[in-house]
């Protein structure tokens, strides 16, 4: 039972029930928009459903998952996904932190600067991916043109065509796109920190490097952890960037691209759902791991 105080200091009893009534519409929407499709996908993953036959379906047990585990392309996709996620997220965090620290200072035009920094994040991914695909084109892309003119390279580089470079390009574009988001989250965290610590540090004339390591980082830990969890889970679902930038070869696919191919292109709803469910499993596993690993730290500081 919750006990709240009115401004006059009187005790008000609230039933446990009323908040459920207020939450109900929101929960309904969540269940209908997220829960139902999710359950349906999991259900389909144990069947032989196809896109043209969603009604008369047979249960086939874990057969879909067995063939998924045997598929080399799937494991390649898993590897690609984690490579992208685990390289791009740390880079975004570090760059985001630097940008957040700069934007946290008082300087003229700070508001404008904050707006400008957000631009990559506000462009829809499909659009920015297309844009980058043109810029990275090996023959008439502007990136090669500039590098050639500057004399850095002497023959054009196939940025998104070579199998090793294309994953590097995808990571770079992802970093370009998502760093502003990271910066925004971290900036919000920075602004919530108690100012007195900084003032004290200033009075004691502690160098910035030391105050960053000793004051800012420990205080920012909860924010950083939450931001990293958010981004990692987001990065594992990466789809549009890969779909547009990669050559379409299965060797460059990520998990969600793989799932889409089977679900939609091959019309194999059962198997595609199994892949989607496996992706869900990875995300669930990671978030449980993250949360339980960080729970103590989160509570201690935050």
């Amino acid at each position, binding site marked *: 039972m919750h006990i709240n105080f009115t401004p006059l200091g009187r005790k008000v009893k609230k039933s446990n029930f009323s908040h459920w009534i207020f939450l109900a519409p929101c929960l309904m929407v969540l269940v209908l928009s997220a829960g139902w499709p999710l359950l349906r996908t999991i259900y389909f993953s*144990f069947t032989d459903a196809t*896109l*043209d*036959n*969603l009604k*008369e*379906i*047979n*249960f086939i*047990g*874990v*057969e879909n998952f067995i063939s998924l585990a045997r598929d080399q392309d799937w494991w390649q996709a898993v590897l690609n996904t984690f490579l992208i996620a685990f390289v791009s997220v740390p880079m975004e965090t570090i760059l985001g932190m630097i940008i957040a620290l700069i934007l946290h200072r008082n300087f003229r035009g700070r508001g404008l600067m904050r707006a400008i920094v957000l631009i990559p994040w506000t462009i829809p991914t499909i659009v920015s991916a297309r844009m980058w695909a043109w810029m990275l*084109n*090996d*023959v*008439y892309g502007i990136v*090669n043109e500039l590098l*050639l003119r500057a004399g850095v390279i*002497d*023959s*054009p580089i*196939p*940025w*998104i*065509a*070579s*199998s*090793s470079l*294309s994953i590097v390009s995808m990571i770079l574009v992802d970093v370009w796109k998502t760093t502003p988001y990271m910066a925004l989250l971290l900036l919000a965290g920075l602004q919530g920190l108690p100012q007195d610590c900084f003032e004290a540090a200033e009075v004691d004339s502690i160098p910035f490097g030391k105050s960053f390591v000793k004051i800012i980082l420990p205080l920012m830990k909860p924010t950083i952890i939450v931001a990293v969890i958010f981004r990692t889970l987001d990065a594992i679902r990466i789809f549009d960037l890969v779909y547009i930038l*990669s*050559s*379409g*070869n*299965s*060797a460059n696919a990520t998990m969600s691209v793989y799932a889409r*191919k089977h679900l*939609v*292109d*091959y*019309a194999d709803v059962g198997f595609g759902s199994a892949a989607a469910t496996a992706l869900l499993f990875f995300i669930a596993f990671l978030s449980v791991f993250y949360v339980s690993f960080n729970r103590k730290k989160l509570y201690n500081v935050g």
Partner: protein
Amino acid sequence: MKIYLKLLTVFAAAFLCFFDANCATIKIACKAKGREAELIEKATKEWMKSYKGEHSVEIITLPRASNECLALYLQWLSAETFDVDILQVDLAWIGMLADYLHPLDEFLSEEEADVSDYFPVIKKHIYHNGKIVVLPWYADCGVMYYRTDLLQKYGKPVPQSWEELHEIALYIQNEERKDPLKRNKFYGLGFPAKAFEELTCSFLELVDSFGGAIIKDGKVIVNSNECVKAVKFLVHSFGSIINRGAVNHSGEEIRGLFQSGNSVFMRNWPYAWSLMNEQTAEVAGKIGVIPIPPSAKGGKPSGTLGGWSLAVSKYSKHPHISADLAKFMTSKEQQRVRSEFSYLPARASLYRDSKVLENNPFLGYMYKPLRNSVARPSKIFGKNYQRASTEIFNAINTIITESVESENFQEKDIKKYLDRLARKLNKILEKTSPPPVSKKKVSLPKGEGFLYRIKKFFGLSN
């Protein structure tokens, strides 16, 4: 003001329609973008006029990539939607979509049902279970474009074979690259090798021109000597006359290369012709087109057929009126109008009409490629065609990527990759044939429903 009037008439028409069961809004899904959108709009307006505005037409624009259109169709049709009446269908999809398409024989007069005028490869693809299910709209066929001015400048003939093409392309490439501005950008041949349907098409015609095939008489022969030779040639070309980046280029990107004057030859579809001859294009008036050449002089030229047609959805509420619109859009007159914008007629007689040819010499160039065109193995793979096509373009894309990047790549590896591809295609073929009859659900015996399901779920019951 004008827009209000327009809206008013639309509402009035909708209001009247509500009471009049005879009038309908026909929704047509087609690749209506840019120039094509104008053509389609004009045609549908003409059709509406012929009915004095009794019926109206709504155009639904499809995605650019054709495999995405197919995915969209499968979603629509499996949901039994009546939001779409007419579909623009690739002839290679008939095997996958036929169950959803309305048979059209009942709407066709004897004259209209006469298919003898269509190209033979197209003719083969319009039937399902002996009934006409699609009306051919325009033909598409892989062709080789070349720069007439560059061949003239270096005194080279129009190539008669792949071998000759390679030689000419390499020579001109080396000469043109002496210009410092073109040093890093000029290539002999533009070839779309992105892992998409288009690569299956360009691979198929290459193999065909080398005398091979992917499937022959129901047997997968993609690892035959002819195919190995064809792939060897492709790999060799990637080392010399094709840009490395082409591994991630579709036809549109390749058109950018050719249109900006940076290659001598280009493999593409006919639609590119009218776009590249627009006044603003750098290469306007300097282009010629030939069929995909044979491997050696005197062989059979080739080109993958990619014809488009119109079909009526089984779930359409107005199949009769929809069929009428589809008939109008695919009529000989409409095909003639579209041919001026390099959408090739599916009817052979238009290519012999001297009046048409006078206005549009391009049709004259295209007759030969179309006669020699080769169809994708979509009928054999039926519902699994997309899967087979993916295996094919994946394998070819991988071979090219490996050959360009890995130093250990040897020519004998090509055979290994093609053997693996053949095994995969055979597996898909096994799955496909006998052609899947609509699956009947095995109804669960009563009384043991839940337990039976759980057991079956874990694979404990048979």
